[in-house]
């Protein structure tokens, strides 16, 4: 009883602290420094409270709920934190904690340029909004807090409002998020129509009365609505623009955790509320996951804007999460609950992992941007000499996202692979091919992600500086490095304790109604994660110790071999010319060959500009440049035609808008008539 009270109290204290942080920042807005301190410190405190509260639920299963009916009969402030909610609260709070530490130092470069009080206000509101989204237990209340989260994040995206591109990104985000919300509202209204309630528990308990047609419609609507927030392809177009426009600590949160609220609702609706789902739901989710993961990483490869590159990797990782979730849905629909637990655990694990390494990478990028004042990777180079710690943390993040052991990304992708392999092994031929597609896509994705981060790390930190700013860059502030160090350590720690974390996540997965009381197909013991029929085993501690041992052995061998050798430092042979930044391979050049391989998918565009010393003679080029880009196929083939269609329809509809009161009253009159006649029949 005491535990229940304390975990709920701590949760509400967390919301209260975010509220104080929001108001405090506004009150202290006249002083940039104090507004930043208030916003960040209360955000840190609120995040710690959120962590404590969620851990209590996760470990002790002290589920709590709170319900307060407002005057309006349909709107009740209703929270329920079960294990699934607690897991997402944990992830949000964890990243919010580190992002808030980071913001203490990072926000300084906005002093005297932008309104820090407003930043602190919307930042805390955003954090509180996310926590409430994953704990809301009434559809109307959910929509209120969903909108709070969306609007707060919109204002954060346009925070640097002197940049027109940021305003455009914010505008696009605003439109897309509300299109998504429209679909979500339709889904909830359909559920309300069938169950007569907006309360999640009532909906869940009345699911037997909902017809399959309604379930299918809700699935499609929720998939589009929450998929828009999650950034699945093709409703992802807002994501690279908005995530790159926001301040870095906000980008880390948006990319690391906000998009996961869409995943949370997928699980909540599809697996916790629904019953008796058809197999094709899982197949659709798997196909979307395969496409999103593969295309996400390919688009990332074409980017030379560091934040957009990372944003595209979010699409890729959402795809990977969906591969786990999709396989879980298929297994559940095929009455293979033990395997469904494996798929869901892989999905949840990757949710946690992606949050940590993506936040780390965004913070690394933010540190670099704060020194070089550009997001263009072609203008970096050689930063490892000036920002060695940032380079190290970024490298850790890059290895984790590339699924290299011993970091956490490796384990969740491995678990996702196992889930897909089980599908290939156990399911009928009609479904096998989707799992095969998923596994192939995931394999490609892993390789391409590694290539992309070789490009990113090489272009940013290695070779020589390619701009004056890069030449004079300095290591970032202490709070920034502390935040990055925490996340870098976490990627290793989570990887190391993957086996233990998996057992916790198995309890989360089993708490979902679809998988209740299911015996997992895996076991975790002594740091090893084993699939029960000897299908596969992995031990992260063993991998870590093996790598460390191999490195130590290699170092010893080198020492022995080179013990007699003398070190000579000479200039690199440069063919008689002076080495400079222009001689290095650029990010664009690095990815060009891969883009060429996938030109059928990416539709690259190439423009060559040559300027001659003598325009008539055209023998001696003064300068030449190649601009390599890709066609935005979604914008050109989906959104622009859709926009044109809407514009044409609007032009037709506008014909009835004559600006004459008489005509408008006539419309009302005719409508009234029509309704009366309709009523008579």
């Amino acid at each position, binding site marked *: 009883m005491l535990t229940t009270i304390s975990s709920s109290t701590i949760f509400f204290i967390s919301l209260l602290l975010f509220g104080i942080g929001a108001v405090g920042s506004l009150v202290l807005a006249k002083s940039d420094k104090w507004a930043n301190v208030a916003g960040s410190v209360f955000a840190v405190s609120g995040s710690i409270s959120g962590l404590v509260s969620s851990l209590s639920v996760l470990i002790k299963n002290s589920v709590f709920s709170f319900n307060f009916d407002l005057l309006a009969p349909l709107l009740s402030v209703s929270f329920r934190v079960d294990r699934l909610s607690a897991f997402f609260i944990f992830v949000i709070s964890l990243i919010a904690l580190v992002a808030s530490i980071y913001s203490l130092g990072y926000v300084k470069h906005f002093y005297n340029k932008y309104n820090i009080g407003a930043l602190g206000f919307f930042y805390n509101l955003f954090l509180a909004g996310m926590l409430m989204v994953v704990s809301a237990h009434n559809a109307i209340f959910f929509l209120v807090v969903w909108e709070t989260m969306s609007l707060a994040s919109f204002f954060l995206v346009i925070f640097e409002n002197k940049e027109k591109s940021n305003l455009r990104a914010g505008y696009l985000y605003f439109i897309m998020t509300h299109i998504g919300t429209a679909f979500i509202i339709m889904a909830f209204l359909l559920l309300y129509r069938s169950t007569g309630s907006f309360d999640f528990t009532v909906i869940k308990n009345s699911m037997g009365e909902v017809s399959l047609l309604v379930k299918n419609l809700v699935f499609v609507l929720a998939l589009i609505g929450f998929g828009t927030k999650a950034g699945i392809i093709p409703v992802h177009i807002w994501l690279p623009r908005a995530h790159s426009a926001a301040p870095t600590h906000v980008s880390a949160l948006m990319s690391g955790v906000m998009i996961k609220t869409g995943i949370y609702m997928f699980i909540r609706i599809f697996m916790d509320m629904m019953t008796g789902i058809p197999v094709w739901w899982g197949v659709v989710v798997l196909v979307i996951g395969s496409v999103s993961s593969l295309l996400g990483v390919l688009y990332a490869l074409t980017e030379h804007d560091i934040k957009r590159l990372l944003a595209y990797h979010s699409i890729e990782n959402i795809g990977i999460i969906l591969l786990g979730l999709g396989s879980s849905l298929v297994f559940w629909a095929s009455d293979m609950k033990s395997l469904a637990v494996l798929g869901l655990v892989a999905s949840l694990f990757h949710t946690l992992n992606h949050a940590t390494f993506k936040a780390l990478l965004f913070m690394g990028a933010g540190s670099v941007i704060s020194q070089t004042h550009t997001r263009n990777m072609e203008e970096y180079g050689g930063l490892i000499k000036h920002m060695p710690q940032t380079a190290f943390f970024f490298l850790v993040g890059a290895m984790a996202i590339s699924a290299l052991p011993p970091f956490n990304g490796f384990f969740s992708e491995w678990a996702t692979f196992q889930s897909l392999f089980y599908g290939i092994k156990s399911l009928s031929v009609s479904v096998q091919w989707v799992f095969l597609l998923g596994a192939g896509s995931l394999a490609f994705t892993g390789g391409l992600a590694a290539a992309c981060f070789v490009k990113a790390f090489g272009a940013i930190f290695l070779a020589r500086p390619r701009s004056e700013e890069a030449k004079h860059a300095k290591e970032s502030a202490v709070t920034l490095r502390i935040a990055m160090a925490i996340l870098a350590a976490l990627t290793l720690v989570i990887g190391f304790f993957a086996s233990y974390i998996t057992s916790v996540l198995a309890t989360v997965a089993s708490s979902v109604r679809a998988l209740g009381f299911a015996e997992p197909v895996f076991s975790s013991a002594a740091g090893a994660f084993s699939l029960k029929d000897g299908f596969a085993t992995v031990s992260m501690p063993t991998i870590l110790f093996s790598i460390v041992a191999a490195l130590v052995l290699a170092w010893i061998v080198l020492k022995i071999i080179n013990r007699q050798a003398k070190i000579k430092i000479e200039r690199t042979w440069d063919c008689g010319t002076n080495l400079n930044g222009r001689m290095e391979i650029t990010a664009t050049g690095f990815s060009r060959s891969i883009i060429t391989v996938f030109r059928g998918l990416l539709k690259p565009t190439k423009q060559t500009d040559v300027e001659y010393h003598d325009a008539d003679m055209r023998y001696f080029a003064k300068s030449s440049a190649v601009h390599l880009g890709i066609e935005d196929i979604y914008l050109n083939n989906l959104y622009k035609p859709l926009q044109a269609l809407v514009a044409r329809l609007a032009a037709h509809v506008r014909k009835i808008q004559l*600006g004459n*009161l*008489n005509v408008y009253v006539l419309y*009302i*009159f005719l409508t*009234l008539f029509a309704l*009366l006649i309709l009523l008579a029949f």
Partner: protein
Amino acid sequence: MFIESPQTLFFLEALIFASVIFINIAKKNSFAVFLYMAQSFVVAFLLFNSSLKESSFTLMLVALSVFAVKVIVAPYFFRNLINKHQLKFSVSTYLNGPMTLVILAMLTAFTFSSFFQPLSILSQENFNALLLALSTMLISVFVIINRKGALSQMIGILSLENAIVSFAFLSGLEQNAGPQLGIVFDILVWVIIATVFASMIYKQFGSLDVSMMKNLKEE
């Protein structure tokens, strides 16, 4: 002392109905205002009669307020507007006189058709008067649609309100005195604002003909 026979109530409702018919075909603004005043007088009389029947002081207060606002204040504002801007003749209509009468006949026939038979559950004895009140509502809306002058449209809106009040009265759907007083106050404020707006529109466009107000349109 007070009237409660269905025939008398039907007669009073017929007066309200006749006033809106004449508002539709009136050429002079001042005549339309007079017709509205007469219509409002009948409505105030109905309410006054109800207050006597119920022996309710508050209802009498409502009837007096209705009388003050609709029979005295609103026509006063309209007459001032007419005198100030020399709006003796009302602006033209979209449909000519005969066509207007045809539409009015059709609307009346529609309300007396089988569509509205279910309304008899509201009041069996005043059923015909109820249908007449419904016709008055539809014809008042038609005033707003058919006439181009802003003043006529304002009278159409107020006539619609009178029709709703009489419908509520006949069907026994009257509210307590509080909401009724609130509605009367609302109408008073609306009349003042609408008159001021109409005056401003006249200054801007030199006419109260809404079809002449092209400058606010996007070209």
